[in-house]
Structures are given as C-alpha cells and as structure tokens.
C-alpha cells in the first residue's frame, strides 16, 4: 500500500523514519532560506533591506527550526529506520507511540510556522531569554507561538526517547549483548537517556513562561521577586545536554561508517562507548558556561570552567579513536566516508573554539559575538550535519534499494565543505573585531563588512550544495543502480537483510556472536541463512492505526487553544485527546479480538 491513508496510519518504523527525514528535509530548506535572507541583509553595513522586526523573527526561527525541526528529527529519522535493523528487531518497542511522536513533531512544527502567516513569528531568539519574553516587553503573540510550539514538539522527543530506550534494552536479538551493539545504536541509546531527562526541564521552563503570559504568574516578573536568571538556568540545564543530543547521533553514525570504509573494526570500541556515556553524564554539569557574563560570581564561574574543560577530554578521545581506526586501514573514499572525514577535520575546529569559550575571561569577549556563532555552526553544521550527510549516503541503499550517485555525492561534499568554511570561518574575525550576534545591522565603522560578505557568498554556495543533495536524492532514488543487501561490505546486522527490507525486517531473529557479525565468515553464513531466508509464513506485524495521528492532533489542538487565553477552551481539546487515547488503549495492535492480546 502506498496511498496517503497507509502513510497516515503507518506504525512501521521504516516508514516513520522516512516521514521524519522528509519533513526535516523540508524544514532544512525553510531554515536555510531564513539564513540566506539574514546573510543578504548583512551584506552591507547599515543596510535595511528588511525591517528590524522581520530580521529578529528570521534569526529566531532559523535557530529554532534548525535545532528542533531539522537536526533533532533528522537524527530521529535514522534512529527509527536503522536501530531496529542494527539490533535485529522487527520494529521498535512501541510502534504506535512511534507514530504519535512523528505526528506531534509535525503538527507542533507546523503550528509554530503558522505564525509566519499572521506576521508574528517568534522574535526573541532561539533561547528566548526572560524578561524580554514577558507580556510587558513582548505583548504580541510571537512568544506565545514559540512557547506553545516548542512545548508540543518537546513531547515528541520524550516519547521517542522512551521508545528507543525500551527498544534497545528489550529487543536486541539473541546474543546481541550491549557491548556488541553497533556504535550508532549505542549513541542512540545514550542520546535517548539525555532526551528523556533534559526535555522535561525545558518543558517546565516553558510552562512557567506560559503561566506568566497567560495567567499572570510571576516566575520571571522582577517586580514580584521573579528572577529572569532562573530562565537562563532552566534553559541551559536543558540547552547544554541538548547539544549532546545533537552531536552524539552523528558521532555514532561516523563510528559505523569509518570502519566500513577502512575495512577495519572501530579502534577502541569500549572506550568510544564509555566516552559517549561520559559525555552524556558530564553534559549535565556544564550548563552555566553559557552564563559566564551573567554575573554568577567567581566560584560558580570556576566550577563551570573546570567541568567544561573536562568534557573536552572524552570528545578528543573519540577523535583519536576515529583516526586510529583509519590508520593502517584500506580507505575507500565514498561520499559517506568523505563526510565522515570532513566531520573529524571540521568538528575539531569547532571543538577547539569551544575550548576557548570554556576559559571564562576569554569568553567575556567572545560570548554573544559572531565568534560564538562561528563556534556553534562549526560543531552543528560541521559536526552534526556532516554526520547526518554521512549517514544518509551510507544507509541510502538500505532504505531505497538503490545506490546513491557517487559523482553527485562528491559534488555535494566539496560544495558543502567549501561553502560551509567560507560561510563560517570569517565569523571568527567579525566576532573578534566586535560584531555582536543577533544584530539586524552593524556600524560601518566596525570595518567588518568584508567578513560578512565572504560569509554571504559562502552561504549561497552551501545552499547550492543542499540543492545538489536534494537532486541526488531524487535522482538516485529513481534511477540509481540497484543495491543488494550489503553493497558496502559492512559488518553490522542491517546489512544482512534485503535492500529495502521486508516490512517485517527479519523472517526470524538471528543469533549474534560478535560485534561485526558479517565480518566473521562462519557467523555471517549462520546469520544470513536466517535473515535472507524467505519464510513460509510472514511474521505477524502490528496493524496500521488511526489513533496516533488523532491523539497528536488533539494534543496540538489542546496546546494551541491555550492561546485563546480562556482557561476552559483547551479543556475541550483535552477531552478529545483523552477520547482518542482511550480508543488507542482498547485497540488491539495485532487485530485479533480486543483484549486477547496485551500490547
């Protein structure tokens, strides 16, 4: 079935993964266009091509979109598609919950972007500091859209985290001990824990702000004793783990790609795993390095200097392990491998400018300038996105059954690498020379016009790379060379089944004995005897369900109705959501008589 209804009711992790990917790809272009308008406005000093208000909306939505509607869901697309295949599972632990997460993400994102159509997109930056976001200083609906949209999208992440933790704990194939799992699955596991613990914090921060705005609460109202610094603490308690949520999946992806195209196993597998776990943990202890200018005092500042410097160490260890994996190997420069190498080279720059920021007094010059903008784009675009591109080219054959075009892939890579560096490297200079961030325009006296112009040109080159990427996707999916189960000769379980997989993934569950099942000849034969067999009877899979999209619609509606400001109106949405949850609870996912199977 490929009709619309089948997509709306699907609970298949592979389809949900594709939906996540295509949706995040759409928002990638939305966020990219927002960025290019920004870059054009910044082409000349003291220029006013667009109004300050529109500019503030653009950079707010660019950041919010790229973090919450692109980087996170695109990683989730890979969690969805790849993790069950890597651990030898037929689907995730809670397929309908999985669908729910997607629909909530979609509706929440659409809701926030609907604000464009009423000319009131969020405009207080992606970090939304109080008390600028209070009713007093932001009386319009812009901040309401932001608070509500982000709250909705957050729910999707928590539910997804629960789903993937359960999946990885409980649905590993026989013999797949934790220390035999592919690195990408490991990083998904760690990321899911960070998601499940960090998102509730920003949920509360947003709830407090919502109560201030809709019900006159005093959480960030200074006249009543509320402290805007509380927002900063809550936001960054979430915000810093959030950046590890962003990067760990990409680290996981290249940890699978690099061994595949070096024809050697990952060097220091346990160390890379523990480094990831450690990063997940320590990531909770560094948040106030975003607040070095807030006046926390020397003792607090010093603590966060120390913790932030410490977290650089496991990150560096991973880089060395990737280098050691390639060392002595037989390196094949597929597009996936190029992007992985690109990540190692470019993320290092971003990580090192991060070390500079970790030195608090130095950060007092760099914070809130284009130097920081350079830093985080190096780690997010050069790190997160490069990893996602690597994962894309790597798993493309598995998803589509066709090989990605390597020539177009290389063009994508080089255009992206050149464009990206031209776009963001000059920002180190404009930042050092005094250009703050979030500025609609800048004085000609600053003399930073040249750096801005270089960035703008780089931005368009990077945009061209994105177009090449999209074109490659379409073309290769349609007419790429057919791919077998394991076109790369890779080691892990997802490469033991056909491309694309049957809807049930595995006819029966294989037994795993090592970390690289397909690289040990005897094990490979045993596994493929199971995974490539055609079963007499197809395994029973959960049936499609209409309730996830309805619950998602109900939840979105409930939150959106909060904007009416009338306390009982959202309750109607809640009632509808409750009804849909009930129907879901009593639905039998396998379609037998209701109540006969507990699922």
């Amino acid at each position, binding site marked *: 079935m490929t009709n619309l209804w089948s997509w709306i009711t699907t609970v298949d992790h592979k389809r949900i993964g594709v939906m996540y990917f295509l949706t995040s790809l759409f928002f990638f272009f939305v966020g990219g266009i927002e960025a290019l308008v920004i870059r054009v406005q910044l082409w000349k000093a003291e220029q006013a091509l667009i109004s*300050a208000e529109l500019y503030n909306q653009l950079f707010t939505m660019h950041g919010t979109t790229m973090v919450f509607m692109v980087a996170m869901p695109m990683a989730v697309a890979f969690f969805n598609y790849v993790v069950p295949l890597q651990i030898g599972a037929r689907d995730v632990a809670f397929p309908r919950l999985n669908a729910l997460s997607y629909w909530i993400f979609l509706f929440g994102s659409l809701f926030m972007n609907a604000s464009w159509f009423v000319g009131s997109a969020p405009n*207080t930056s992606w970090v939304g500091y109080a008390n600028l976001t209070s009713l007093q200083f932001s009386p319009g609906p812009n901040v309401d859209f932001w608070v509500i949209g982000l709250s909705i999208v957050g729910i999707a992440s928590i539910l997804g985290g629960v789903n993937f933790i359960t999946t990885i704990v409980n649905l590993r194939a026989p013999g797949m001990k934790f220390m035999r799992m592919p690195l990408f699955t490991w990083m998904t596991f760690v990321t899911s824990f960070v998601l499940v613990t960090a998102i509730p914090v920003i949920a509360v921060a947003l709830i407090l702000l919502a109560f201030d705005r809709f019900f006159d609460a005093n959480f960030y109202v200074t006249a009543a004793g509320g*402290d805007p610094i509380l927002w900063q603490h809550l936001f960054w308690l979430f915000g810093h783990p959030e950046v590890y949520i962003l990067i760990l999946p990409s680290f996981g992806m290249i940890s699978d790609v690099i061994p595949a195209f070096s024809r050697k196993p990952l060097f220091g597998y346990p160390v890379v795993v523990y480094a990831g776990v450690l990063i997940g943990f320590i990531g909770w202890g560094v948040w106030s390095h975003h607040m070095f200018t807030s006046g926390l005092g020397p003792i607090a500042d010093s603590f966060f200097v120390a913790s932030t410097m410490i977290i650089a160490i496991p990150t560096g260890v991973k880089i060395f392990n990737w280098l050691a994996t390639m060392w002595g190997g*037989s390196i094949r420069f597929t597009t996936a491998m190029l992007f992985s190498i690109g990540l190692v080279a470019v993320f290092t720059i971003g990580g090192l400018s991060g070390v500079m920021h970790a*030195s608090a007094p130095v950060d007092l010059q760099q914070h*809130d300038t284009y130097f920081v903008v350079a830093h985080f784009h190096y780690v997010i675009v050069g790190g997160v996105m490069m990893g996602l591109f690597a994962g894309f080219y790597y798993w493309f054959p598995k998803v589509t059954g066709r090989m990605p075009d390597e020539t177009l892939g290389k063009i994508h890579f080089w255009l992206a690498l050149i464009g990206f560096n031209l776009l963001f490297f000059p920002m180190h200079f404009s930042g050092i020379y005094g250009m703050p961030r*979030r500025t609609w325009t800048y004085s000609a006296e600053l003399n930073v016009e040249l750096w801005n112009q270089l960035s703008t040109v780089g931005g368009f080159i990077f945009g061209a790379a994105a177009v090449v990427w999209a074109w490659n996707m379409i073309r290769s999916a349609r007419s790429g060379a057919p791919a077998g189960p394991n076109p790369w000769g890779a080691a892990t379980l997802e490469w033991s089944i056909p491309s694309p997989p049957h809807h049930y993934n595995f006819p029966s569950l294989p037994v795993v004995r090592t970390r690289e099942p397909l690289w040990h000849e005897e094990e490979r034969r045993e596994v493929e005897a199971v995974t490539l067999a055609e079963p007499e009877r197809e395994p029973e899979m959960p049936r499609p369900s209409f309730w996830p999209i309805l619950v998602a619609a109900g939840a979105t509606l409930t939150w959106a109705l909060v904007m009416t400001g009338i306390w009982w109106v959202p309750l109607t949405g809640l009632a509808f959501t409750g009804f849909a949850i009930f129907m879901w609870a009593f639905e039998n996912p396998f379609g037998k008589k209701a109540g006969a199977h507990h699922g």
Partner: protein
Amino acid sequence: MPLLLAACGSEYPQSSIDPKTDFAEIIHGLYVSVFWWTMVILAVVWILLAYILVRFRERPDQPLPRQIRGHLGMEIGWTIGPAIIVVAIAVPTIQAVFATQRGDPDNAMVVEVVGHQFWWEFRYGEAGVVTANELHLPVGRPVSLRLSSADVIHSFWVPQLGGKRDVNPVVRRPEGEEVSATWLHFTIREPGVYMGQCAEFCGESHSLMGMRVVAESEEQFQAWLTDMGGSAAASGEPAAAAAPDTSAVPDTTAAADTVPAGGDTTAAAPASDTAAGPPAGQPAPAAPAGEPQAGDALVTEGRDVFLRSTCVACHAIGGTSAQGQVGPNLTLLGRRSTIASGWMENTPENLERWITSPRSVKPGVLMPGIAEAGGNWPATNLSAEQVGAVAAYLSSLR
C-alpha cells in the same frame, strides 16, 4: 596570528584584541595562550589526518588490513595528554576569573550604568552627574561599573576596555534593597574614544544600542564633571578650571564637525541659565573658537520650544527646568560625538532627523516624533522650523 590581528587593531575600533585596560590585557594574554594550545591540537589532528588519507588509501588488490581493535596504552596516552593541556589552560583561567572579579573597593570610582531599551544611562553618584550614551572615564584610576537594567537584560560591552557583563533587571526583594547588580572592574591605560554596544538581544533596536567611552586625563575628566554640573569636591580633586586642552583626546570615530571635549574660551552660552549651573567663578563652557556661532535667536527659540513641549517629560538638561528622568539626559549634548546611542554623528542635520522621526532611525524606540506617537506620548506636532530650532539649541549645549 593574534599579534598580526592586533596590529590591525586601529582599523577595528571595536576590536576585542586591542586591550586598553588591565582587565582587557589579562583577557588578551589568556586568549593568546589558549589560542596557541588549540593550534597545537589542531595541527596534531590535521597532520595525522592528512597523513592517514594519503598513506592508507585503498589500493587495488590490497589484502585485508590488520584488524586491530584497540590499544590501552594509546588510549591512556591520548587521554592524559589532552588532560594536561586542559589543566594548563584551566589554572591560569581560574586565576584570572578571581583576579578580574575582585575590583578595588577602596580606591575605585564607581559609576552606575543603567541599561534601557535602547540607550545607556551613566550616573556618577558621588559627583551627582547623570549622562547618557557617552561615558567619560579617567585614565589611570580604578573604575568599577555597577550595572543594572531598567527593563530587560542588556550587556555592556566595550571590547577595548575588556569583556562584557550582562546588565540584569533589578529583582525586587522582600526586605529592602538587595539589588541584583553586576560589576565590571578595570583601570584604563590609554586615553582615547572607545566604541561599544549592547551585546544581549534586547528587542527591536538591539543592534543600534551603541555607546562611546571617552577615556581622558584626570584633569579633563574633572573638568567634564564640573561642566556637567557636578561637584568634583566629592572625589577630593580640586574643581578644575576649564584649562587649555594640552593632552589630545583622539577622536578617531567622530566626524569633522565634532566638538573636542573641554573648550577653553569663554563666551555667552545659553546652556545654563539658572543658578544651578557651574559654581560662580567657573568660566562657563563655550563653543571653541572657529565654530560657527549658532544664531542666538534660533537657539533661544529652540530652547523655548524644548522647554514648552513634551520633551521635558522624558529629558533633563542641567541648569534648566527640564528634569525628565525617563529618557537620556541631554546636558552638554552638543559636546557628544554621537547621538542615538552611538548610531549617528552628532550634527544638527542628524538631530533634526532624529527629532522628526526617531523610529526611522531606531525602530521600536519609545520617543515620539513630530507625526508619530511613541511610548506613552502622542506625536509632538512640531513644525519643521521648530525642529530646526530645537536641533540648534541642543547643538549649542556645550
């Protein structure tokens, strides 16, 4: 590389690698050392990577590489190595954190900085002087800036004076006056005019919330304080006569018709016309020789329009009946090199433009124009001629 960049410092008036204070120098020194450490690490990683990509590329008919899974010694090595570098960076960092946040409570001159949307207020408590957007400070004396906001979070940043510090709104506390102010401490080494701007997104015109810091000799500073109507006696310095300007105050950022601080000729000046002006015996500050004399009649008319209009609801001018506290203090406005918080040169034309329509310069500003309401005030409805007169009056305030 940072030295190379620093050499270009004079071309970059808001450069963060052109330190002019002890505070900025500590930061700069730390930055240079951290920079070189990071370059070392970058070089190691990139050189290794480059070597790997060349040496270990796939060759035809290559056998399977040795399947090495790890090496404990290397893991320890590349954990300890970076850890040592981290300590080498962290120790001086933490020392600098404490050193730069100590201040000098016994000797420092405290200036209160109040952030507003979208301008800066400066209050010299001891001397009783209030001004806006142009901060005068003495060279060679410890200064402590006490920062607080009247509305949202701003950030005070003059890169050549050192790092930035957020300007937080005052949180009301149950008992009394514990105010959540933040601080910056520094001693300026070199006279000059330094550029800065707000560095925490604060609303529509955040990017236009600039400022200038005029760092001048102690004598010039005292003279300025006195001219502003302050009592220099509070700081123990004798009230300085308006002495000839021997130490140049380089005016690198303002345009040709900017008035250097501290004029030295006496002339009838309409700036202060009540007893609240400078103490008797002080020569009244005046337009330096060579400046075209603004027509007395136009200036007088401008003063009358100003004092009669809603201007006085927000603005104060020392020595007049205008004592509004809501907006920037305009005492000696004519001497400032810029207006609109550093965004425009201080010329009569720009003043007229501003008074006519502030929002055309700074969207979101709370000041009304002649045909647009602003803040809580209706349009001022001044005629173009009246605007010209007011601009002439304000320009004459030297």
